């Protein structure tokens, strides 16, 4: 039985690439439009499309339930905005985040913003296993700030910022693995394997 992944569809942007990428990595992907359905999920992916408030509008009614689920160990991957909503809130929006990761999302302080393109992720985690080329694709103007113990990957761009967060079985990547070619697919394959092992 392949891993069933519930992919949250907030109603904005396209999910083609992330869906296809997860399928290539062996997952059985279910696109979920009603966020309450996430509560039955065995693995959740929050994709990296849309804006903070609009995404949180959909998720606020189930905020506490989702946090309980993640605390209970249901594997989860949030990508870009999908990672940012896992924090307590963002300078980009007014709504609170899910608050699973301590800390907030702040504007990128760098000479050239958006931070757009391929950059290196430094750090140790099982999701980096067998990935020689650690360059992943980024496209963002904000980044998360959180406690050191939750940072498993960081990236340098004028400043050094957290690019992969982890707490328990929940990951948040600032980069887009689904846009990061071979390295990104290897990362997602590692995540799918990791999530399978938790079932």
């Amino acid at each position, binding site marked *: 039985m392949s891993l069933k992944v519930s992919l949250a569809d907030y109603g904005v*942007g*396209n999910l*083609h*690439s992330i869906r*296809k*990428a997860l399928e290539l990595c062996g997952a059985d992907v279910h696109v979920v439009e009603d966020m309450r359905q996430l509560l039955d999920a065995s693995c959740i992916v929050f994709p990296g499309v*849309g*804006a903070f408030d609009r995404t949180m509008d959909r998720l606020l009614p189930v905020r506490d339930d989702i946090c309980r689920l993640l605390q209970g160990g249901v594997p989860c991957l949030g990508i870009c905005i999908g990672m940012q909503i896992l924090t307590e809130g963002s300078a980009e929006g007014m709504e609170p985040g899910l608050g699973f990761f301590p800390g907030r999302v702040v504007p990128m302080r760098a*000479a*050239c*913003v*958006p*931070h*757009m*393109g*391929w*950059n*290196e992720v430094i750090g140790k985690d099982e999701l980096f296993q067998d990935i020689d*080329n650690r*360059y992943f*694709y980024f*496209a*963002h*103007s904000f980044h998360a700030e959180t406690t050191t113990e939750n940072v498993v990957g960081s990236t*340098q*761009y004028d400043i050094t910022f957290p690019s992969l967060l982890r707490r328990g079985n929940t990951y948040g990547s600032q980069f*887009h693995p*689904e*846009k*990061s*070619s*071979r390295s*990104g*697919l290897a990362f997602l394959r590692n995540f799918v394997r990791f999530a399978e092992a938790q079932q």
Partner: protein
Amino acid sequence: MLARRIIPCLDVKDGKVVKGIKFQNLRDVGHPPDLAQEYEKQGADEVTFLDISASLEARKTMLKIVEETAEKLFVPLTVGGGIRSKGDMRDALNAGADKVSVNSAAVFDPDLINQCAEDFGRQCVVVAIDAKRTGDNWTVYTHGGTRPTELDAVQWAQEMQDRGAGEILLTSMDADGTKDGYDIELTAAVADAVSVPVIASGGCGSIEHIHEVFRSTGASAALAASIFHYQQHTVQEVKDYLRDHGILVR
């Protein structure tokens, strides 16, 4: 550290890839989704599709091509050409584009850029500028480089950044199609004037040209077409050369 990007550009007409020499004399070089995938294998950091067909019918064909491409491409895809409204941009994004470039429409209605950035996020909004030298400055052209405007290219780039462009795709009309190299002066002038990434375009005829534009300007990315389409070089060869010459690439 952020790597410089190499972006093969596919000019697409009626669903097929063509390359314009000075925006004319088109020659067919293949099926867009296949070529895009081939470029990803070679190490392309992104792929850009520029739709140069005019009809409404062709526009629908393009969206189908984008959908087919997005299913199998795992690097970012930018789509441009004929984007006139927020609706056009939404269609391209929904079809699977990661970024959409707007050219002439931004000149007619600059506010379109504010709206698109607001609705879709500035990281998906690319403003394409076609510029041609006039005296000491550069003038913005629209309609595929056929109509001059009153706008100064450097000031225009700044205004587009302020309105929400996440990136500037800068094409030199003087260099485009010549294969004599990128317009270094223009690229440097625009890259120095804005704080969003600038993609240099027009004039690439050799690996050395790509090295030159990265060495001499603040361009974040270099766009090229013919050196890849006619298999003069693979993307990997370009990257190996750049790496050997001290330019950071993926």
